[in-house]
């Protein structure tokens, strides 16, 4: 029978593609429910019929591991991502370091981010800005969205001149330019852990989870801008 | 079935305190605007829960606030003609008429739809909705709806007020027949003395929330205290013969009375309302005048009224006939109690709406 996957919404197009390939190879189907990671984590905690959970941050996977809702032995760090500074339209690249004068670049506009205390992309971004000593000056200019896609949309529509999003998001949007990448050390590594749920009884779950790390899948992930841990 | 009503209820600025008991038949509630008539009817219908009271129809107890007993309206088997119509706007006239039928017990006998429709002249309206009926059409449908509910008690709150005389004259006999068949007690609100005289078995006169007179119409209608200038008498009569020229001769205790041909068998007992101001008195039998009806009796009382008139009561056998004449005439004619006297009525002054079938039993007896 089908494998049911609960996956963070930011994976939507890439995971769809991987799942299609898998179907083509094996004749099996993966049914994927995309939503925010916190929602999915809570649903699994309430006994949702998911076989596999792919979270956008380790926090929620930690929660489920602690409550015994996933099989710890199957947990793995599936993907990585990086954080980028984007601008609307064509723009000159900058170096993201302590010298970056964000307020000047914003020129009265907003810096578009995901929610800095709750949504993973926002949490990473805030941490990076703090680490670089830029946060205090720019904090009042931050517009926070409930997900990265909306944060991206503000820049794409030129409502906000700059934004901080995942590299994968930026790659997908034509109207924005990546003008800089945050140094890997400026924030915790961005990791998408995956695991099989405790209540899964699908005999295909393991096969699909393994396929996600297979070479053909990795090619697709990279295509969409993700990094793949060795 | 007797109707027994004791109620007391207080609205801001209006207090109702009534206690009356009336014999079987049709009870008219009579009184000026705002005297509490509709309030009494609503209490009998169960739509108003009075502060305290007791209502009994025959030995059927509808309300006894002391015993905390109050039959809900839908168990009272009513046919209530509301003062304001209250037709169901979403139903056709036909459905309005038949509404009560749905809920009447299987065996209940009521009039035919077609008979009521003919009586009320609402045939062409049956498939219309009440929204665009004229005022009088609405009130006719409201009457029909109540009659067709096969009720055990009819409540009618000024049912004929919006109708012209011709219509009234068609509908009044129906209420008379209902009254005389005796099955269904009727509580009827009216300001019109002709209606009162024709229909009432008993009149309950209200004023400012209190009963000022109860009794048969002959008595209450003659009571200037209750009636003001509208006093009248009620004579009992019997149909004697139908003459060829279209007149019917009635026998009364005071002699023959000719009226326009009546549709009633010889021997039928009737009652005649005679407005006090329509009676002319004469010491001698008058000759050569067009009035055919000259009754003979003797004066029992001459009561002065406020204003220029006096009220002269004649005894015609057991009946009383009152005449309201000017004090000047009474003086000129030197009228005095005990004297024999003639009363002149016009044949055509006793109009159809003033003549009603007499009660088959207990006619005109008080409570």
């Amino acid at each position, binding site marked *: 029978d089908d494998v049911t996957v609960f996956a963070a919404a930011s994976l939507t197009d890439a995971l769809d593609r991987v799942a299609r390939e898998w179907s083509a190879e094996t004749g099996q189907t993966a049914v994927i429910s995309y*939503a925010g990671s916190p929602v999915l984590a809570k649903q699994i905690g309430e*006994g949702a*019929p998911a076989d596999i959970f792919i979270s956008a941050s380790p926090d929620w996977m930690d929660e489920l591991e602690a409550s015994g809702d996933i099989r710890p032995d199957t947990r793995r760090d599936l993907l990585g991502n990086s954080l980028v500074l984007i601008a609307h339209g064509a723009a000159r690249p900058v170096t993201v370091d302590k010298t970056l004068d964000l307020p000047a670049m914003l020129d009265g506009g907003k810096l578009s981010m995901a929610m800095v205390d709750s949504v993973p992309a926002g949490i990473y971004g805030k941490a990076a800005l703090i680490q670089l000593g830029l946060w205090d000056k720019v904090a009042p200019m931050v517009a926070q969205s409930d997900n990265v896609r909306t944060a991206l949309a503000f820049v794409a529509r030129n409502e906000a001149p700059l934004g901080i999003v995942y590299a994968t998001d930026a790659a997908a949007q034509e109207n924005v330019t990546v003008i800089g990448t945050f140094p890997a050390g400026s924030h915790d590594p961005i990791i998408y852990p995956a695991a099989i749920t405790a209540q899964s009884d699908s005999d295909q779950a393991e096969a699909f989870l393994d396929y996600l790390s297979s070479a053909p899948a990795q090619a697709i992930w990279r295509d969409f801008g993700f990094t793949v841990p060795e | 079935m007797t109707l027994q009503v004791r109620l007391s209820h207080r609205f801001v600025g209006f207090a109702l305190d009534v206690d009356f008991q009336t014999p079987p038949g049709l009870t008219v509630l009579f009184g000026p605007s705002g005297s509490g008539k509709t309030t009494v009817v609503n209490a009998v219908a169960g*739509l108003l829960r009075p502060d305290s009271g007791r209502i009994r129809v025959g030995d059927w107890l509808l309300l006894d606030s002391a015993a905390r007993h109050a039959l809900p309206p*839908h168990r009272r088997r009513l046919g209530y003609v509301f003062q304001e119509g209250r037709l169901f706007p*979403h139903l056709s006239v036909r459905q309005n008429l038949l509404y009560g039928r*749905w809920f009447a017990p299987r065996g209940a006998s009521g009039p035919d739809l077609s008979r009521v429709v003919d009586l009320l002249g609402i045939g062409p309206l049956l498939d219309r909705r009440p929204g*665009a009926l004229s005022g009088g059409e609405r009130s006719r449908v409201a009457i029909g709806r109540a009659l067709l*509910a096969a009720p055990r008690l009819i409540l009618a709150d000024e049912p004929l007020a919006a109708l012209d005389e011709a219509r009234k004259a068609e509908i009044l006999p129906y209420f008379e027949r209902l009254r005389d068949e005796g099955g269904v007690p009727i509580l009827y609100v009216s300001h019109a003395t002709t209606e009162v005289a024709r229909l009432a078995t008993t009149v309950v006169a209200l004023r400012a929330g209190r009963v000022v007179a109860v009794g048969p119409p002959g008595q209450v209608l003659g009571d200037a205290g209750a009636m003001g200038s509208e006093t009248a008498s009620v004579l009992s009569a019997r149909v004697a013969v139908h003459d060829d020229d279209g007149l019917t001769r009635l026998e009364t205790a005071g002699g023959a009375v000719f009226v326009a041909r009546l549709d009633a068998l010889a021997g039928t007992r009737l009652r005649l309302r005679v407005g006090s101001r329509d009676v002319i008195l004469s010491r001698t039998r008058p000759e050569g005048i067009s009035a055919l009806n000259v009754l003979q009796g003797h004066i029992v009382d001459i009561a002065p009224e406020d204003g220029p008139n006096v009220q002269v009561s004649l005894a015609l056998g057991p009946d009383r006939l009152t005449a309201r004449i000017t004090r000047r005439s009474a003086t000129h004619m030197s009228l005095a109690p005990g004297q024999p006297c003639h009363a002149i009525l016009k044949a055509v002054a006793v109009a159809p709406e003033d003549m009603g079938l007499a009660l088959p039993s207990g006619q005109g007896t008080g409570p």
Partner: protein
Amino acid sequence: MIEGLATSLGPAEWQAVRLSLQVGLVATLGSLPLGILVAYALARWSFPGRQMLNGIVHLPLILPPVVTGYLLLVFFGRRGPVGQFLDQWFGIVLSFRWTGAALAAAIMAFPLMVRAIRLAVEAVDPKLEQAAATLGANPVMVFLTVTFPLILPGVVAGAILAFAKAIGEFGATITFVSNIPGQTQTLPSAIYAFLQVPGGEEAAARLVMISIGIAMAALLLSEYVARRVARRMSGA
């Protein structure tokens, strides 16, 4: 236009359309009797806890949909008290089923439905109901033969509002029953999914047009019904 769209829809999208219709209809029709009862009670009866009931009915409007969704998940989920009870005694499972989506939609739409019907009940002249009672109709019959026909336009308005809301409901639904294609993925969830995909705007727009089409058809139908009822009552 709708036809043009239809041909360009994939099977998953068709499923979403079908599911949304199903969820919308079941949510609306299923909650209608309770909606009428609650509206009538709030309009006409006074009982202890009336204000409490009124408040509870409005809750889904006040709370962010996610919160409602979480509460549903906690109470009606497979491990929640009500969910367990329903499962054990009636074999009804709501969580992660389309039935759950219908429940979420019904609850989110309930305040709208109740308000519309309640306003209609309040506009009925109690004197007409009294008249029916004098003619022998017991309270239930009074309701069925007088009150209900008179509030029908309000009931239709309430049902349409609820249906539109049910078709558009997203936050509580995705939180309660997730976004499982073919099972719980309604039109709004599908639209959400497309909006997560770069370049998915076009596909999302297509589904938006379909949502609008469905809702417009429902609206036109309701206007038609309401007009017919109104025309009848004006006596023409």
